[in-house]
């Protein structure tokens, strides 16, 4: 059992999350990943946006920033540029990262700046009481979609890959051991990494969509997740109500902060010669 207690600010607990919320499971997976990698706590910064999951930063014993709605990635970019020695991890929700922060998300991926982004994806705006997000499945209900969501959701994995992220994975609160491993890989990747962590919101999403209590929603995750390997053998019909978990993408590209440091060095050498 990993010792994750040292990563928690006990004085800031208890947390604000509802009974049955999956955010704690995702957060624990992240802390186990940090422990597995033995990241230097002093050199690790956790940055979050606004929303239920983004409150997590306040519970963690690091340098932590709870920024404005959607803005975790610009703050994280400034932090990483100013001090590339720091491990920068972003905690964000589905609305925070893909609606109000959508522009920052694709551009951070494009730059391939060494930031690990963990999306606590519960398909809903929980903090404000259950409005639909860009990751709410089509036709499901929300307080702002009483007749069902007419819009199609993003495929966050494909969006991140298309925008240039060099590590993209998806996990769930149910598959929490795998989720830890995916976050380990994401942090180890020198570039922009995205982990789409599917988690349950029984209060604001599950109840509205008759998905039952938290345990039943976790079983739903178990029954609807298919591994990358299994997908290859499945027909489109069999896949229609499933989602893929595991490592979705891995590639190698120059990392932005390191490239900028190389520029500084190049100019220094040139200046020295002149």
């Amino acid at each position, binding site marked *: 059992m990993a010792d994750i207690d040292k990563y928690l*600010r006990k004085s*800031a607990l208890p947390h604000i999350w509802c009974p049955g919320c999956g955010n704690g499971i995702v957060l624990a997976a992240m802390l186990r990943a940090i422990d597995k990698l033995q990241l230097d706590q002093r050199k690790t910064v956790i940055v979050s946006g606004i929303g239920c999951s983004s409150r997590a930063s306040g519970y963690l014993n690091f*340098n932590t920033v709870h920024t404005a709605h959607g803005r975790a990635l610009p703050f994280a970019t400034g*932090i990483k*540029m100013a*001090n590339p*020695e720091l491990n920068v991890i972003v905690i964000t929700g589905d609305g925070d990262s893909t609606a109000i922060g959508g522009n920052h998300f694709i551009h951070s991926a494009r730059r391939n700046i060494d930031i690990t982004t963990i999306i606590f994806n519960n398909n809903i705006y929980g903090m404000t009481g259950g409005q639909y997000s860009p990751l709410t499945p089509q036709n499901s209900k929300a307080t702002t979609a009483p007749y069902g969501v007419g819009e199609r959701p993003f495929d966050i994995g494909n969006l991140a890959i298309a925008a240039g992220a060099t590590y993209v994975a998806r996990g769930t609160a149910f598959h929490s051991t795998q989720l830890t491993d995916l976050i380990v890989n994401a942090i180890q990747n020198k570039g922009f990494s995205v982990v789409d962590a599917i988690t349950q919101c029984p209060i604001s999403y599950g109840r509205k969509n008759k998905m039952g209590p938290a345990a039943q929603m976790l079983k739903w995750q178990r029954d609807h997740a298919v591994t990358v390997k299994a997908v290859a053998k499945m027909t489109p019909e069999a896949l229609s109500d499933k989602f893929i978990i595991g490592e979705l993408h891995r590639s190698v590209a120059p990392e932005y902060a390191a490239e900028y440091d190389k520029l500084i060095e190049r100019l220094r050498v040139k200046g020295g010669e002149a």
Partner: protein
Amino acid sequence: MNKARLMQGNEACTEGALAAGVRFFAGYPITPSTELAELCAEKLPKLGGKFIQMEDEIASMGAVCGASLAGVKSMTSTSGPGFSLKQELIGYASMAEIPAVIVNVQRSGPSTGLPTAPAQGDVMQARWGSHGDRGVIALSPGSVREAFDVGVHAVNFAERFRTPVVILLDEVIGHMREKVVLPEQKDIEIVERKRTTLSPEEFQAYKPDADEVPPMMPFGEGYFHHVTGLMHNHMGQPALDGATTKEVLSRLHTKIERVQDEITLYTEHFLEDAEVVVISYGGSARAALSAVKAGRERGIKVGMLKLITIWPFPKDLVQKVTAQAKKVIVPEMNYGQLVGEVERYVGQEKVLSVTRYDGHLFHPDDILAPIIEAAGGTK
């Protein structure tokens, strides 16, 4: 001594900020401020600093906040429309007490307005643009050389008070070229942000010292703390009770206003016996000073107070220099913004607003005419 150089206001402002130690710039292109970003893109990596062009105005303000938290003096530049977009995170920087400099090279608005025409339309946006109450520092230089000095002061004030500082250039001062002799680096006074003397265990990130400013420790040194835009206690943890709220909101104002005299920058011209006092700032002050001199040549007892520090509004100074005045004239390139503050502290009956908002500079005659009238008619 440094050689005389011909340079733009935007360039001088950049040089001032770099001389004061700015080593991070995040920005987004917008006329008429883009020269600041271009110069930083060229110069910062040579100084070991960083430049980044972000995906939008909001992101550049966010990156500036992040870099500052990581311990680097940070700046961004913009113009009216971008200044509007940045307001959310300027408010965040006030609340979380993050030093940052925002240069706003004002143009004519509202909306896209006249992108290349001069205006001073953001005086009130600088004060009230972000939601809620907070103390604000805004400086407005009136010449290229002053743009350099204000660049230095803005960085120093931001670091000293842990607050965002706005530089209000206008298109005239930003793009005008003048001959300037800049001071040598060794003669420039530079303020570094205050560090704590406590251990990481004892450190409380938002516990103020006697000067009401909390010491600030950069990320990465083991001084763990939480930074949030929520109302927060001395540990930086969310605390939404009335007593905390009152304490924080009061201090965001008083940490700046308690030393108003030290941060009020201004120049005085012919004020000793002035019966007509002109109060102006930025690009307008240049035409105003010509008008005041022309008035003096006609024998009118007219003088001028040129404000460089606009916010916090120097009410004591304004009351002092207008105490004996029969008329106070406030020329500005907008529909009348700072004049409201002058009226508030001097009295409405004494104050005359002189405005120009057609995208053109004041001509000295625009200001001389009301001076003559205030002095009792034709002279």
